[in-house]
């Protein structure tokens, strides 16, 4: 629908990437062209980026900058970007940009709003940040740092001995790290390991995104279906494996991990190591996906087999593969959206798997009452067989898993209606200026980057391990805002004032200040065609004296309010003696493993150190 011959802006930008990693793509297969939403790209010699991503190819090990690719160069643009290659660093830049864009697009779609990073900052992607076997998201730099390393000389798997392996070329690693960044943006307090399920959720969530993203590429799904004959849970299925090249290059003799395997109802109760817990979460989600697909495609299989439903030996019919693939891709995209959308229905602090499960079910119910494809039911079942149950909920019947909505007949609250209306205006304005805001230098685009905190008494190494918690809270009284965009500050202040007056409803305490840690509008089109306009707001309180010196003790409430000013959900994580006790038990358990420590300057940070994004990913990747 061009308005003039001068309007040549495309909708999408096509870019080539490795669907998994260069090791798997060596046969020439498994390279795909993905389409990312077209955004104007700002090109500089040292970096390029759109309005929320910046690819900066700075290597902190050698202190050098690799020239940034010009994706708008006609020669590059007309061939859907550079050809996938391990030896072309500009292709590496293109790949991280493309995959990160796809991840963010999934978030935008699922959340019904454009995810933006704090204060309109760009998320920085450093495809060759350092030499080392790790890749991780650093919230203080708001950057994803990808390492590169030499493949194992003894057991390099399918790689060459000593070959350089780039983590930025593994599709799943890029998606995983960007998902961490996005979740951190949505829930900044989830970097506090207040219970083992918090880091596990971060990991499991990021892995879920990493696994399901390739399912949105039709040619990849078709290939997977041809290979597994529709049985994605089959052993050795590519779909189940994460970090294949990384694992093999590190001498593990296989992928980093695999999500398949028979579910064990006792697993959840027994497990407390966050990575293992995270895997449990991913395997539950993946199994629900597969079961749903099977149900959804049973009719196709029956049609293709003359009603028997038994697939014949040998290759599947290409038409059937295409049809199956499109069903799988649609289901995958539903699963991904469902998981991302769940984050809006989670308490802002100290989440558990139970909170996630209830959020998952409720968020999906809000958008899709009928659950025609049975995805919701499959999810619940897959969680149940792993022993993940909603706590403080009577039975496992679907209804009791739902969060309890507030009284729909209560009179609308005008103040809230006012806040939502202002926010919607602001949001609309925000969408309209979605192109590059400031063509100036990168540093100045970010109005106020979070100051990098460094504990002066610690050595560099310890300081870098101990990623600081969100903030040191010394608010005297009243309300504090996390919002740094000046135009939104008045809304935050209004919201804070409202929250102060409604502490009882929010299950917040009277004697502590309230922090408005985030609020945003949500627009969603329900399958019925109905447009849902809502606001999600997060309010947090911090106890002055934590029961454990290692971790802050916070309460928080997420509210979901409709445009008319009705509070639809109050998702509270109030201060409770049981929570304090659980926290103490968790620290004691941690210490029993590592040895109870005498207090030192660094001992208070030992949980942070163990569960920082960097340490978590380092363990994941080794």
């Amino acid at each position: 629908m061009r308005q003039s011959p001068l309007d040549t802006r495309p909708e999408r930008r096509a870019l080539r990437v490795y669907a998994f990693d260069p090791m798997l793509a060596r046969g020439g297969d498994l390279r795909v062209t993905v389409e990312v939403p077209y955004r104007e790209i700002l090109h500089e010699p040292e970096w390029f980026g759109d309005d929320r991503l910046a690819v900066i190819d700075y290597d902190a090990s050698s202190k050098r900058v690799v020239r940034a690719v010009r994706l708008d160069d006609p020669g590059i643009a007309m061939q859907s970007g550079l050809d996938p290659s391990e030896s072309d660093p500009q292709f590496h830049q293109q790949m991280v940009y493309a995959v990160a864009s796809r991840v963010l697009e999934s978030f935008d779609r699922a959340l019904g709003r454009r995810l933006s990073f704090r204060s309109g900052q760009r998320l920085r992607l450093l495809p060759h940040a350092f030499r080392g076997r790790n890749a991780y998201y650093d919230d203080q730099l708001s950057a994803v740092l990808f390492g590169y390393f030499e493949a194992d000389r003894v057991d390099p798997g399918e790689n060459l001995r000593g070959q350089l392996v780039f983590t930025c070329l593994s599709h799943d690693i890029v998606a995983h790290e960007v998902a961490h960044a996005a979740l951190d943006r949505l829930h900044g307090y989830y970097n506090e390991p207040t219970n083992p399920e918090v880091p596990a959720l971060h990991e499991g969530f990021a892995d879920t995104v990493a696994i399901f993203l390739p399912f949105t590429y039709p040619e990849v799904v078709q290939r997977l279906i041809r290979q597994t004959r529709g049985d994605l849970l089959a052993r050795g299925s590519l779909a189940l494996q994460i970090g294949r090249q990384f694992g093999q290059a590190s001498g593990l003799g296989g992928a980093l991990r695999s999500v398949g395997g028979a579910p064990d109802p006792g697993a959840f109760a027994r497990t407390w190591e966050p990575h293992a817990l995270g895997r449990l979460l991913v395997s539950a989600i993946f199994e629900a996906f597969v079961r749903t697909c099977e149900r959804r495609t049973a009719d196709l299989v029956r049609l293709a087999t003359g009603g028997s439903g038994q697939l014949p030996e040998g290759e599947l019919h290409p038409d059937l593969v295409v049809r199956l693939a499109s069903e799988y891709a649609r289901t995958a995209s539903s699963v991904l959206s469902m998981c991302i959308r769940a984050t809006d229905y989670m308490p802002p602090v100290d989440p558990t798997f139970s909170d996630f499960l209830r959020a998952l079910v409720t968020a999906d119910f809000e958008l899709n009452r009928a659950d025609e494809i049975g995805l919701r039911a499959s999810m619940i079942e897959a969680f149940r067989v792993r022993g993940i149950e909603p706590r403080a909920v009577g039975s496992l019947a679907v209804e009791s898993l739902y969060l309890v909505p507030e009284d729909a007949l209560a009179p609308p609250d005008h103040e809230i209606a006012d806040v939502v209306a202002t926010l919607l205006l602001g949001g609309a304005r925000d969408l309209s200026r979605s192109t590059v805001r400031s063509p100036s230098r990168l540093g100045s685009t970010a109005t106020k980057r979070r100051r990098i905190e460094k504990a002066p008494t610690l050595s560099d190494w310890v300081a870098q391990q101990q990623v600081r918690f969100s903030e040191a809270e010394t608010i005297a009284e009243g309300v504090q805002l996390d919002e740094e965009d000046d135009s939104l500050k008045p809304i935050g202040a209004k919201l804070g004032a409202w929250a102060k007056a409604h502490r009882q409803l929010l299950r917040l305490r009277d004697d502590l200040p309230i922090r408005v840690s985030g609020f945003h509008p949500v627009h969603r089109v329900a399958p019925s065609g109905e447009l849902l306009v809502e606001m999600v707001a997060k309010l947090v309180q911090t106890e002055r004296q934590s029961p454990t010196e290692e971790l802050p003790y916070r309460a928080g409430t997420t509210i979901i309010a409709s445009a008319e000013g009705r509070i639809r959900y109050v998702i509270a994580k109030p201060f409770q003696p049981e929570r304090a006790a659980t926290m103490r038990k968790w620290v004691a358990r941690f210490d029993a493993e590592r040895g109870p420590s005498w207090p030192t300057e660094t001992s208070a940070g030992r949980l942070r150190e163990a569960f920082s994004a960097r340490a978590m990913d380092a363990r994941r990747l080794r």
Partner: protein
Amino acid sequence: MTAAKRAVKKATAKKATAKRASVRASSAKKTKKASARRSSRATRTVRIRMYDVGFGDSFLLVVPGEPDSERPYRTILVDAGFHSQGVGAFQGRELAQTIISHLVELSGAKRIDVLIATHRHQDHIYAFNAAEWDEAEIGEVWLPWVEDVSKPEIRKLWKKHKSFTASVAAAPRDALSAEDRAELEFLLWNAGEDVGPAPADPRLAALYAAWSNAAALDRLRDGFGRRDRREPRYLPEADQGVETFETEALPGARIHVLGPPRRAELLAELDPSVDDETYRAFAVAPLSAGDSPPPPFDGPWIVENADPATLFGPDELDRLASLAPSGDSLMAARALDGIINATSLVLVLQIGKARLLLPGDAEWGTWKCILADERAVALLRGTTFLKVGHHGSHNATPKTLVEQVLPDDGVRAMVSTQEGPGTYRHNIPLPALMAALEARHIHPVRSDHTDAHLPDGYRASADGRWIDLELPC
């Protein structure tokens, strides 16, 4: 933890009976030997001499032998080591020379009846490199069981350790901050790698160049001028919780071995590759020392004269720089340090009514087993002397031990220690631990504070190079 607590509780109940029994036993001995003792000495004592070796351990114990015999005193040497970067009052061969002269002074012979090397860290055994030891006569040598290299699986373990430590030492460390690098080199040197600054004195430097961890271990295994018992005792000799034995070398003494646990799993745990996280980073891709590999891209790919300051703020560049080297090598070195400390002997020497707790550098893993064992806890309750483990570090003296097990009635204590830079040595000795000990009326005397006012019973030498404690037994 709960198991340990339970054991502690049960042991409390048994404490009374155990105490009565031990009182009976020692009073019986007393009457029997009373006359003999009077002739040689007014009261029976154990003399514990702590040398100011800087960062390291060396304790000479003189205990009663057979009265009216040729040898009324017996001698025990527990470790003789120091760190080249944490020097105290002794350097080079001085420690060996001093100890040998003290042997003659205190017991009349150049003889060590029992020589104990708690574990293989340099700061505990380095001085055994000195040739002077060949003049000394040795009764027995005690080593932790994981040093019995006649066993192929143990040989294999140490070989693996050696190659892993070497690969950590070979990794480029120029990117680490000065403080972190110093700590890394400190740890690696202690593990036997020849890294870090050499002493300024050229003669000392030449001497140390010839010394090694392996040579010290060799001497402990089968060196010295004369040995009554050729083979070292590798302790404990069986897997049975607390192992108690007596030896001719120390008549009347009972030795209780509390750690390290003699379990096959310990060997598996000592394997550096169990800590997958750190091991993976170094087990592969050996790099030649200091030789940073070339960056992956070069030539036309690089933006010439690019100024990173236009891309990142100054504090961001600092953070990137500190993240880039990834503290892997430091992490690996710390893990290795802990692994070797886990091999440390934990002994209770029972000499008359004195019970000396000598825990080497044992860390939490070992203590966890000990505190879960009722017999061990009962023994620990009778402690009269404590050598504070691992120079007073944060994880070598468990809270439970201090707060619930050690008696609250003035246990004598010594700590061989030296403060130093780096996070590792920064908390040595740990103030919180020292305060907790004080709260239990345990006032550890520090090897590095010889000029401090010492409590009754302790005496520093005139030159401040050692401190003596006379402990009734």
